[in-house]
């Protein structure tokens, strides 16, 4: 008589493929997952609590540390919500700079995702290719604001630094090269039989489920829902540029992969246009009162981060500090669907599915 029992396995918080200190307690029957319980909070720093004692400019560096792969969009969502509350006008040059860095950030973020996803699936080289390209973006950011990861670049009312001489041209060169590199990546990876067999049909859900779970970003679009805040609720200058919103059909990891890859192309397209139209001169800071004190009231502002809808809910009492600041973090919301997707999958697919959702733990735990 064989006695079988379930294996309780802690995946994480130290695990190469949980992309940070994320932990999933899985019950395994052989290698098949019968139950998965995500456990998080290992990176909870209480950003929202800390923010209640800081003025708005001081909060910006904290947003860098939320989704540290895409700090620029986090900067933007906070600054944008305060500006909206105060009814500030942003100079065009500053807004262009913001848009350019946000789109570069999107490319960089998707490159990180692409590299690490391939690494999860067992291919080593794409990781290094992706990082060598991301490195160029980081260098450009470094020239712009003196930081490579946590930029603290945007301010309420504009941006901290103007583009240095020749910076725009260097970005143009980068965008041109990136188009070419992207084709190479597609040649190398997108048609690889092993890769396709690993991700096609894995982690599949339909549009209704995605909407129920409040997924956003590529996770939602992979099911065929055309929902990109840059298009549906335009902010910044996005309504000035032509770009497409790639959508998938099946809602599996493969469609999410294609969506994200296509989003890089579309971001490059936006960058092409934005760099062309970039105003030659102008202010980088608008007219901002000395004290940034949003009038009493509340606001919810959302933008499209590389991972989905990042929102900022501010309750102000007319003070320099927010009364309550809440971030809607796309990774946190998107991650909710994970336990549902994992049941019945193998350990190998755990990594594929988790990677496909694209989480950043700094953002999940906040």
């Amino acid at each position, binding site marked *: 008589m064989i006695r079988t029992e379930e294996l309780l*396995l802690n995946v994480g918080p130290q695990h190469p493929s949980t992309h940070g200190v994320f932990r999933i307690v899985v019950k395994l029957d052989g290698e098949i997952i019968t139950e998965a319980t995500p456990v998080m909070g290992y990176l909870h720093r209480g950003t929202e609590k800390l923010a209640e004692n800081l003025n708005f400019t001081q909060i910006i560096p904290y947003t860098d540390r939320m989704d540290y792969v895409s700090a620029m969009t986090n900067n933007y969502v906070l600054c944008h919500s305060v500006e909206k509350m105060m009814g500030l006008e942003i100079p065009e040059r500053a807004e262009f700079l913001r848009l350019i860095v946000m789109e570069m950030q999107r490319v960089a973020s998707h490159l990180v995702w692409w590299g690490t996803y391939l690494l999860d699936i067992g291919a*080593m080289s794409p990781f290094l290719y992706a990082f060598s390209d991301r490195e160029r973006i980081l260098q450009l950011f470094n020239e712009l604001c003196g930081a490579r990861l946590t930029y603290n670049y945007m301010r309420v009312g504009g941006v901290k630094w103007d583009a240095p001489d020749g910076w725009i041209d260097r970005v143009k060169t980068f965008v041109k090269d990136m188009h070419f590199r992207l084709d190479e990546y597609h040649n190398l990876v997108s048609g690889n039989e092993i890769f396709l067999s690993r991700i096609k049909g894995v982690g599949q859900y339909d549009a209704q489920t995605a909407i129920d779970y409040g997924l956003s970003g590529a996770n939602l679009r992979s099911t065929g829902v055309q929902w990109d805040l840059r298009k549906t609720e335009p902010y910044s200058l996005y309504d000035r540029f032509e770009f497409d919103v790639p959508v998938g059909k099946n809602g599996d990891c493969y469609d999410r992969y294609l969506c994200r890859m296509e989003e890089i192309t579309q971001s490059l397209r936006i960058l092409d246009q934005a760099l062309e139209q970039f105003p030659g001169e102008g202010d980088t800071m608008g007219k901002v009162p000395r004290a940034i004190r949003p009038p009493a009231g509340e606001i919810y502002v959302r933008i499209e981060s590389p991972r989905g809808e990042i929102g900022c809910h501010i309750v102000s009492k007319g003070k320099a500090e927010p009364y309550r600041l809440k971030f809607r973090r796309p990774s946190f919301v998107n991650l909710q669907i994970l336990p549902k997707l994992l049941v019945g999958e*193998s350990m190998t697919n755990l990594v594929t599915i988790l990677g496909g959702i694209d989480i950043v733990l700094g953002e999940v735990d906040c």
Partner: protein
Amino acid sequence: MQHFWDQPLSWGTAAIFAAGAVGVLAFVLFFVTYAIYFERKVIGWMQYRKGPNRTGPLGLLQSVADVAKLLLKEDTIPKKADKGLFVLAPVLAFVPSFAVLAMIPYSMNLQFADLNVGFLYYIALSGITTIAIVVGGWASNNKYALLGGMRSAAQMISYEVPLVISVVGCVMLSGSLNLREIVESQAGYFWQWNFIPQIIGFAVFLVAAVSELNRTPFDLPEAESELVAGYHVEYSGFRFAFFMLTEYVYVYAIAALTTLLFLGGWNAPAPQLDFIPGILWFFVKFAFIVFSLFWIRATFPRLRVDQLMGLAWKVLLPLAILNIFLTAIGIELMR
């Protein structure tokens, strides 16, 4: 070497055997050291990196330093591990890997044991390593290690079947299991090497061999992104070095076997080139196979367990059997 086998064992011959073994071991260690260096360099170049370049000229001493580090490291055994088995596993893994090298002929005369069942000897011994890996995974008392060990057992047992059957074609062509005779039967121009008449067998053999080596894209037992490091997750220091060594010695063995079975061993690509010593030809082909293994590693993602098993039983095995029939028909027609 062969004539010593025919004499009764004396102290003298035993000493010669021991010296030979030490010589091979030294050579293999040298190979492993520089195979690792070469692998890191090659993969580095493929990834726009430089690879090791700090320790010694051109980083040539990097692997030496790594091995020294491993040997000097504190020897840790997990508290809840099965100590006896934990210690035994690396040894059990390494010994057969080294023992299989005995039957490899490097040239017409350079061979340690001219077995007439050379290939079977390889298969029989390399199977023991599977046991060692399962033992290591089990004894570690770690769930990842256990999963890795189980995967490894399933994988290596499954892939041994197509591996053996794919070679049957070669054996039929040369009429012998003796590796030297298999090589001799491939003499002549390079299109007489087995990889052309046995193209299906060659393909199946290559895939199965990579899988036997637990290398990308079949590195599931140690899939670092899923199982952290698989069966050797709890091993460190020189015990880990033994597992590592085993892996690379098998790289050596498989590269040598592929060369012998399918690439004409020490035969020159054309009889006109016979003035170049056979052993050189052997090592050129051997190096090419080793390079290909590294190349594959830098290129492919990893398969999933069910796909891996499916590939072995649903694709490779039927192909290998088909190859046998085709070879038989071919032999009949050529006669």
